């Protein structure tokens, strides 16, 4: 059977090379330059061969035998991938030696640079599609998993090696990277913190709401509707809407606000308690109004708590994780995490199912996990004690909310908005996951004598886990994207590069922001999938998209 995907790969690369320029020589950072097509480099047959190489998958697609075809496609694709990166680099260096000879138009030449163009993108894409088609053939031919993994990753890994060794330094993106390297690191970490803090707080709130919705059928539509509405608000609008109230909140003093929060929380608890107590005895309409009242009274203190909490956590994390002073604690935390993971893997898969080695490893794992959590707390406490957190404050009387990190512009609106956006996937997936546990299974658990908490922890949670994790993944990846927009309100993150690039019409800067963001989303997705796979029982694993 013809391998249509391989044919597609070849067509993408071939057409890309034929119609689009592979390189763009720019006279300076800002001006758009002159494009060079692959076939223009006459006198050097290598480039012609590259073009022909792109057409090889089209021919291979017709070959019948899966295993040999698979290996040939993987080989061709990998070669194509690497050469598409390497050869134009060489051509670029030649061009840069004498830019005036090649440039048209009278643009001012200063720091000329080579920008990879559409042809290269399509070439790389076509090459990777070809590799993918090859691996599929191998899978169908029954080749072992580890060989398949090698086939998939060999080209990107070699490319990575070349990248790190500096072979691609002629490309403008890398020039930009070297110029802005430190800033990139800082913004990347900021972006990471956006995602993790919002996801973390959103997880607690979202899973909690999802749990409540799955237990109480009357509350469910209200909760789902509310988080759904939030999702429909465009992110930029939500950021804008939060500016004013947060600015006002920032001006307030801490102690009075704390008092207000306590009173509002008490009111909410009373209303909610009354609702639960009266639950079955009220007529439907009154109950709905009561529920609404509970929602409104709870929303105020909850919003206040979440808003201040995320902003303060960000401040702490910023100082704790990024400032050089806490390097020791941060590396300790990382070490403990790795050790905990290793012991867990050992206990689960390497050691025999029972015995002292097993239980010893399990206890060690628990200890390491606990130590990690404690170290993170220690880090936060250390950072909190740092003067930079609270600024120069004389006493708690003069402490304002702004000192805790909440203000109209900056991270606060971004984090609050991101937390809100993470709610829908989390609530919805938690609700669906818990609801879809087969009632017969829970009934037999009950009939056998499990207590409600045993049923929840041993039956409902493990069975709902894959669906809930899918929600976390969804939310995480979405937050990476929305976080890029947060730059417009001064929150920072990778979006800064994108906006600067737009302002300066420097595509390299845009890419400097966009590519790490895309990479972060992909890595986050893959990591969460991996974790999900580790913790899901083989009895319920399904092939997921």
């Amino acid at each position: 059977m013809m391998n249509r995907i391989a044919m597609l790969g070849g067509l993408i690369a071939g057409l890309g090379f034929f119609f689009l320029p592979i390189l763009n020589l720019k006279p300076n950072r800002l001006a758009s330059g002159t494009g060079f097509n692959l076939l223009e480099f006459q006198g050097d047959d290598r480039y012609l061969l590259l073009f022909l190489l792109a057409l090889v998958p089209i021919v291979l697609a017709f070959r019948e035998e899966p295993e040999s075809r698979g290996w040939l496609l993987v080989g061709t694709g990998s070669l194509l991938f690497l050469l598409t990166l390497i050869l134009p680099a060489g051509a670029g260096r030649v061009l840069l030696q004498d830019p005036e000879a090649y440039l048209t138009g009278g643009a001012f030449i200063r720091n000329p640079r080579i920008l990879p163009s559409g042809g290269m993108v399509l070439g790389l894409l076509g090459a990777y599609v070809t590799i993918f088609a090859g691996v599929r053939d191998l899978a169908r031919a029954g080749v072992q998993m580890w060989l398949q993994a090698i086939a998939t990753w060999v080209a990107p890994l070699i490319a990575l090696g070349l990248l790190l060794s500096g072979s691609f330094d002629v490309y403008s993106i890398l020039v930009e990277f070297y110029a802005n390297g430190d800033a990139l690191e800082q913004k990347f970490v900021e972006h990471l913190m956006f995602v993790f803090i919002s996801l973390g707080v959103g997880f607690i709130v979202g899973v909690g709401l999802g749990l409540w919705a799955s237990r109480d059928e009357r509350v469910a539509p209200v909760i789902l509707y509310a988080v759904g509405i939030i999702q429909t608000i465009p992110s930029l609008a939500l950021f804008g809407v939060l500016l004013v109230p947060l600015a006002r909140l920032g001006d307030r003093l801490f102690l009075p606000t704390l008092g207000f929060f306590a009173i509002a929380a008490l009111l909410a608890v009373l209303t909610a308690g009354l609702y639960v107590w009266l639950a079955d005895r009220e007529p439907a309409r009154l109950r709905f109004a009561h529920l609404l009242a509970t929602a409104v009274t709870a929303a105020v203190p909850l919003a206040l708590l979440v808003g201040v909490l995320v902003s303060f956590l960000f401040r702490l994390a910023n100082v704790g994780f990024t400032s050089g002073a806490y390097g020791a604690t941060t590396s300790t935390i990382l070490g403990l995490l790795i050790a905990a993971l290793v012991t867990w893997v050992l206990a689960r898969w390497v050691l025999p199912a029972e015995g002292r080695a097993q239980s010893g490893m399990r206890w060690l794992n628990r200890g390491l996990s606990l130590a990690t959590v404690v170290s993170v707390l220690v880090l936060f406490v250390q950072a909190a004690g740092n003067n930079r957190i609270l600024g120069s404050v004389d006493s708690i009387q003069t402490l304002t909310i702004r000192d805790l990190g909440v203000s109209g512009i900056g991270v606060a609106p971004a984090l609050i908005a991101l937390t809100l956006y993470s709610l829908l996937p989390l609530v919805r997936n938690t609700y669906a996951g818990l609801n879809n546990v087969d009632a017969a299974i829970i009934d037999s658990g009950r009939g056998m004598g499990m207590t409600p908490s045993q049923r929840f922890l041993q039956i409902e949670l493990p069975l709902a886990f894959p669906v809930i994790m899918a929600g976390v993944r969804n939310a995480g990846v979405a937050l990476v994207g929305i976080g890029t927009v947060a730059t417009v309100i001064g929150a920072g993150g990778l979006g800064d590069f994108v906006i600067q690039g737009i302002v300066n019409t420097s595509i390299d800067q845009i890419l400097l922001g966009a590519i790490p963001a895309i990479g972060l989303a992909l890595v986050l997705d893959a990591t969460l999938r991996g974790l999900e796979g580790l913790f899901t029982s083989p009895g319920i694993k399904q092939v997921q998209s």
Partner: protein
Amino acid sequence: MIEFQNVVKRFPDGFTAVKGLNLKVHDGEICVFIGPSGCGKTTSMRMVNRLLSITEGKILVEGRDNRDFPAEELRRKIGYAIQQIGLFPHFTVTDNIAVVPRLLGWEESRIRRRVDELLELVGLDPDINRDKYPRQLSGGQQQRVGVARALGADPPIMLMDEPFGAIDPITREVLQEEFLQIQKEISKTIIFVTHDIDEAIKMGDRIAILRDGTLEQYDTPDNILAHPKDRFVRDFVGSDRSLKRLGLVRVHELMDTELVPSVRIRDGVEKAKQVIEQYKVRSAFVVDDDGELRGWVDLDGIRHSPTSLVDAMMEADYHEIGVRKNNTAREALSAMVARGFRITPVVDKDGKLLGSITLQALQDLAEQGWGDEEANGS
């Protein structure tokens, strides 16, 4: 022992599902609850382990009110198997069976031994099956694991709610037979809910027929079939109840071994005629020198071939016209109806004639209590 004392179940919307049930299930017996949909059979069963609360009356389990215990403690002492099986898909077979023992805090090695023991009991090879997940098992295998799980902590009592209902008929019959064998070994006190009267007759030591929340009749299967209390029970057990009764009797309980009309081939036609006249039957069985059944002979055949028994007899395969000692009387009747005989030979596995069973004997059995409307049973 399980005892229902004036048990009433009323739901919040006012519907009364069980209206004063009084019933005693004896130790080591399978008591089948059966009745039309909505009769309260499942509701009654679920009140024994308090999955449903009792509105009025009480249920005594081993002599004590079942409300004296905390619900979870009670349930861990009662095996529970349901129609949808309800195996935990994320647990292995071992972990599923080990649920109640683990809740009770048994030591791991004791649990592993118990799991293997139970897998063998329900007919599954432990080495192959103990680490499988439910989705790797067929429906019949899953239900066997379900039964093993219900027996996990060796509870004295079991509640089974249509456990074989979701299985195909062929596997169901196999599982029923095997379960009866297991019950012979372990003698649990079991409440078994079903809507299938044939299953009830097969499985039950006693049957409780329920209608609209009240107990219509509670007696052994044979008594209910022989003496249905009223028109409802009569209709419920089916108008072929006499045949059903015959299904409860084995051939060896009714067969004749002495007065069997048979003749050896070598004895010839004259002897055959003698035998037929002597026993006042229409035909006699013909056996060979080893006693193996080869066919039969009647007066018509003798008239056609007066000199040779071999020519006069009708040859027949003992597999086709005979029944075994362990067949039911109903199967013997089926053989008679198929051939138009009033007598069926009883043979062993090699075809040796052991005796015979007559239509008259079956009728005599059926006549005990035909049309009898007297109430019978406690």
